[in-house]
């Protein structure tokens, strides 16, 4: 099982325009300038590959920070 820090690093890898060093567990990802439905599907796809967990739309919508997403992923494993 990947740690929260590893999850944050994987999350940051999916971003094109955001400096990875500014991305933390507390980052409110939906407030990022580059946040879009396309980025959402890239993240969903990454989480499926890495954790074998398929997120629902509400899982993304109801999460505020990257840590919130991590907690949902952990709860579904």
């Amino acid at each position: 099982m990947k740690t929260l820090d590893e999850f944050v690093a994987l999350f940051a890898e999916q971003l094109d325009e955001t400096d990875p060093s500014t991305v933390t567990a507390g980052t409110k990802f939906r407030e990022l300038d580059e946040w879009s439905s396309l980025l959402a599907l890239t993240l969903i796809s990454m989480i499926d590959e890495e954790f074998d967990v398929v997120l629902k739309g509400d899982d993304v919508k109801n999460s505020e920070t990257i840590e919130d997403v991590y907690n949902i992923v952990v709860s579904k494993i």
Partner: protein
Amino acid sequence: MATAVPKKVIHNKDVMQSSNETDINSFIEQIGISERRNSSVLTEADLQVVAAERMLADLGWEKESVDAIICVTLTPDYPLPINACLVQDRLGLSKECYAQDICMGCSGWVYGLSVLATLLHNGDVKRGLLLVGECKMNWGLDRNALLFGHAGCATALEYEPGNEGFRFNLGTDGSGYDAVIMPKSGMRNMKYDEELIKEFERPERQLSMEAKMKNLDVFSFSVTRVPKTINELCEHYGLDYKKHDYLVLHQANKSINKHIAKKMGVEPEKAISSIEHFGNTLSASIPITITTQLKGKIEGKPTSFLCCGFGVGLSWGTVSFTTKDIVISDLVEVDDNQFENLTWV
């Protein structure tokens, strides 16, 4: 194969004129739909009849030689009888003809092929028609209405001894039943009460019959399920998906399909698309892509396809096959008044 579409073209830019222009362009760019066909007059049976007539003429098949007809649609002319009975009579097919509807959406062409292929395999049916598509579906007034186009596609199959036929991977996840749904049009929420009677008296009453979609749930399903069903098919039958001449994915969203093809390492020119000009036509989206993008390119030589339909259900189907002597008809455009002389109950 043949495709019939309404003559009327709707340009999404025109529909969205009142919105912010940058917003419009980014929406069109991301989803990939600039125009789509629409009719408020024609039904899906009309389009399927036109497509089937053209295909039979181009194949040179006698109508009496057709043993089976399968109509796939979520928008039949009537809740009963089924469209396949109406279409059997309108096409003048034999009364010995097997006729069946399949009530499915985005995965419907692949499911329809699996049923028809089984009938052919059993040996009772030598020639069969698969007719698919949607018309007049009501997506309400939100942006999802910009995604959908009307079309009817016909696919003909003929039994040939020794042909390796079709290979399928089919699946279902009904826990996502509400991801794409028409919640008020079936028996579950039908109530004979005063409120509904009043609603039906209002001019905008169609709104209660509209389909709804949870977009992000559908995105999530698409990007995760499609690579899995393709891999499962290829592993089971020892196939290499990269060795197929064409990958044809259900046409719902250009960005999703690009993402899937890139992730799977499929060359972009093999992953053909028709979404820009026809939008999402549900069960018609794979055959409309083959007929409009490959006419004149694949006739006369064996061509291998990997096709995947996925969506409402949630339901998915992947099929691998090789065409031999394929005949592709010209796109048929249908006038709204083409059938105005016909009378119906």
